[in-house]
């Protein structure tokens, strides 16, 4: 085992989950609305969208790349789908199919540019992200498309018991990615590249294919996030994805996905999304100013990452001693 702290890294969200549970109990005591089935639905709805944003970044982080275009692809796909649905009256299924295809195309374009030019994904997606967002703004002239089909709106805000319907998308994607990275050749290849590009190249794995896969998947998932956001908002807004940049990194970081590549945690994304959604929701319910929520999320990234990464540090050790069940779950996976 080359990286001795690997189990701790992949489970860096465990302490946070404990904290979120404590915070939730606190919120529930302070505000009776917190522990209602409606609020559970609200939290899960926003967690579903957050997880798709996180997954979109995760697929590029896996190969050691960054994408700054997650939000702009989301916006563009939402706008394109909205245009087809509202202006062209295209039926729902082909419109969504086209939207997802467009997201995939945007991602593949990024991957191709990175592979061919040798310029890093960070720089390429910085530029293409501006272009995608620019198209979304120019096509709509900043006016959102409203009057989307009822079926889509119902899906976006519909419920199955206390659970939001959109959660199905998020869980479906999680299952798919879990299989992909755990057992499929393509996924393992991407992780091998992220872990050590030179070794992967020498083993005969194609850098070009890997980059196309990683960025293509990222674009597809960003597109899915864009469509879910559109369904939730009941409109196709060209600014829908403009705030996703920070979240797209926060969620994988909190969830224990390495920024350097080679290691992903699909479950971590789900947990991190749930935690961020719970804390934002709880803060708003206890009447904390919406502005403060950003601040708290910033602090949260710190707390989580410090807990997860510096487990050898004094605070980590203190917390492990203070909360024995946590260390048990983290150590449990160690051979």
């Amino acid at each position: 085992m080359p990286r001795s702290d690997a189990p701790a890294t992949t489970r860096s969200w465990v302490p946070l989950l404990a904290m979120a549970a404590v915070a939730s109990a606190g919120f529930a005591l302070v505000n009776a609305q917190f522990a209602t089935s409606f609020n559970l639905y609200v939290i899960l709805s926003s967690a579903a969208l957050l997880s798709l944003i996180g997954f979109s970044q995760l697929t590029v982080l896996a190969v050691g790349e960054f994408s700054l275009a997650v939000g702009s692809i989301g916006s563009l796909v939402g706008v394109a789908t909205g245009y087809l649905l509202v202006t062209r009256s295209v039926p729902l299924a082909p419109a969504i199919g086209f939207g997802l295809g467009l997201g995939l195309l945007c991602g593949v374009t990024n991957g191709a540019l990175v592979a061919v030019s040798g310029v890093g994904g960070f720089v390429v997606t910085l530029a293409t992200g501006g272009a995608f967002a620019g198209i979304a703004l120019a096509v709509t002239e900043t006016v959102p498309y409203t009057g989307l089909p009822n079926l889509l709106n119902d899906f976006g805000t519909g419920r199955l018991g206390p659970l939001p319907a959109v959660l199905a998308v998020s869980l479906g994607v999680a299952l798919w990615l879990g299989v992909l990275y755990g057992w499929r050749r393509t996924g393992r290849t991407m992780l091998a590249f992220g872990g050590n590009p030179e070794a992967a190249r020498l083993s005969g794995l194609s850098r070009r294919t890997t980059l196309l896969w990683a960025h293509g998947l990222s674009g597809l998932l960003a597109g899915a996030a864009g469509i879910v956001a559109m369904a939730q908002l009941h409109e196709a807004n060209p600014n829908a994805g403009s705030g996703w940049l920070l979240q797209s990194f926060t969620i994988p970081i909190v969830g224990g996905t390495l920024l350097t590549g080679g290691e992903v945690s699909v479950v971590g994304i789900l947990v991190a999304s749930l935690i961020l959604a719970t804390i934002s929701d709880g803060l708003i319910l206890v009447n904390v100013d919406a502005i403060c929520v950003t601040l708290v999320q910033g602090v949260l990234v710190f707390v989580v990452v410090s807990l997860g990464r510096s487990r050898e540090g004094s605070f980590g050790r203190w917390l492990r001693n203070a909360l024995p069940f946590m260390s048990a779950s983290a150590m449990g996976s160690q051979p």
Partner: protein
Amino acid sequence: MNSVLASLKWQATASVLSNTSVLLILTALSWLVYHTLGDGFLSSYNLFTLSQLASETLLIGFSQLVVVVIGRLNLAVGGVGVAATMATGWLMASAGLPPAVALPTGLVFGALLGLVLGAIEVATGLGSFIVTLAMSSIYVGVVLVLSGGSAISTVPASVSDFSNDPLVTPSLSWLVVPALIAAAMLWLLYNRSVWGWRMLAVGANQRAAELSGVRVNATVLGSFALSGLLAASAGLMEMSRVAAALPSLGVGWVLSSLVVPILGGTALIGGAVSVTGALVAAVFIESIDSGLVSLNVPAYWQQFAEAIVLLAAVMADRALRRRPFRRPVAPSTTDGKAHHASV
């Protein structure tokens, strides 16, 4: 140690020369296009605005450049900029301090905010990406909470006159002066001072630098403080230009702060720097905007066109620099160039 620094110096010099000349040609070509195909690009009104914006963008780029040199990133340039600017605005409007006191205080405050970023990075070892990502939302969050989201618009006339009065010709703003001073200082730092070389050494190979006796932590702290100072300067420039301290300042800074060093040929992985490249890059980027206006590109398509021009510039730059004869085989090939002679 000497040979390490000498080879570093060669590396930096080589990238400066090739990159800046390519970018200079691209800029000249783009100006030619804007001038011949569009109208009003070379009007003094347009050039005046261009000089204001390019000066500010240059400092935003510099605030990223100084941390990129040591192999770090600062995603909180906007956060530091808005916090320092709002603090300065508050000092002048509410505390009633004269600009001569408030402006330097704001700059020092910016440097302190930068220092905090560096200190957290050094203390936690979490990596600058995560530290500055989190601190950015903390800085912006605190500013919004304290200001309640409202702007400070009682900026003394002497402050706003500075950027809106012409310098020598009606085509140049006074903002060019602080921007060029900053550029000159940074050029001296990286080409003539031992501190600059230590920063480059840390960026090129931190472990090697440490073993050669460079105090890495002090270098990181110094670089982040400098980054904060430069971000605060950019914020104060914007305050002067729009005659108000806006809580929304700094929102799009991360992207432009990265584009300036990247286009200018400063390696994102650290260890190589080009101050003159950044200077040309800032002019190039800001020319795109006003150039598109003079070409009558509809306002809504400008962001798209700007991004495409950027992408094309990065690709062209990479393609041109790949030519084998651009890659010197030995340090001696750069002999006689100004920077190298100073070893």
